[in-house]
């Protein structure tokens, strides 16, 4: 059975670190950075990129639309 592998790109400068994407991620891919962006927010990033299945839940809930999602079959 084919498996979906995903990859997200987070525009870390626009991210406001609200964490709503992190709690919506079903695989635990997303974490919050330990560094801040130029606005002072701890931005979201794919901490465990191997776990991403490209479901786009994160992008769906992101209030600022900072996440772009890619997905492919393996």
């Amino acid at each position, binding site marked *: 059975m084919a498996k979906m*592998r*995903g*990859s*997200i*790109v*987070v*525009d*870390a*400068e*626009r*991210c*406001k*670190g*609200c*964490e*709503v994407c*992190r*709690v*919506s991620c079903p695989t635990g*891919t997303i974490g919050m*950075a330990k560094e801040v*962006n130029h606005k002072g*927010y701890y*931005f*979201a*990033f*794919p901490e465990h*990129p*191997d776990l*991403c299945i*490209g*479901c*786009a*839940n994160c*992008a*769906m*809930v*992101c*209030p*600022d*639309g*900072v*996440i*772009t*999602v*890619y*997905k*492919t079959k393996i």
Partner: protein
Amino acid sequence: MIVATGIKDIIKPENLVYKRSSVMTDNVLSYCPGCGHGTANRILAEVIEEMGIQSKTIGVSPVGCSVLLYNFLDVDMQEAAHGRAPAVATAIKRLIPDSFVFTYQGDGDLAAIGTAETIHACNRGENILIVFVNNGIYGMTGGQMAPTTLPGMKSSTSPGGRDVKTMGNPLKMTEIVATLPGTYYVTRQSVHTPANVRKTKKAIRKAVEYQKLDRGTCFIEIVSNCNSGWKMTPVQANKWMEETMFPYYPLGDIKIPEE
């Protein structure tokens, strides 16, 4: 510019699943981190793009946190005075009947100062979409009590919690307008989880279709967090919203067309 990226091999145009709609401008949203307004704005833009109605859309923004909506959506827009958006939209739709007209209003705007305009536009069955973002508080002006604030809920003008005896009960505008024959589709949704975002998008798509039918007002309430006003983190606020707001403002369709 820091960009946080996943596995690079997968990042190819043919693998694209989701990106922010082109109907959103490049302006950074002025909302607080985690605010439901951002998500609501975004999915409105997505529906406008997906349904190809950008050149027919005329929106009306309110006074409130979303006063600058016209900086975020790439459509023709008018700023309305506080509460008056349904009256403004009435004229737009009557004068340009084949446009897609929506108002986007907060709870102070729609349920306090704008109660008359809301009720009467719905009562006349104006063929517009009213998007009502309800976070139970006046966000923009610093967290004052709104007509939709829950009993016991603290705000800057109800520091001891809303006292029903002197301040009245929360108003359920959605249920009120659903009783009017002029409304065609009335629903209450949220945008705090992916599943709810998908449902809300579906509701907005329906409203776009229904507006072409000329059968009355579509009214979509989006119960939202206001983590700044409620003094919580966005994730905490969404949880609190589920536990405390949803029992009073239950999600779901309140009025659907008979067909």
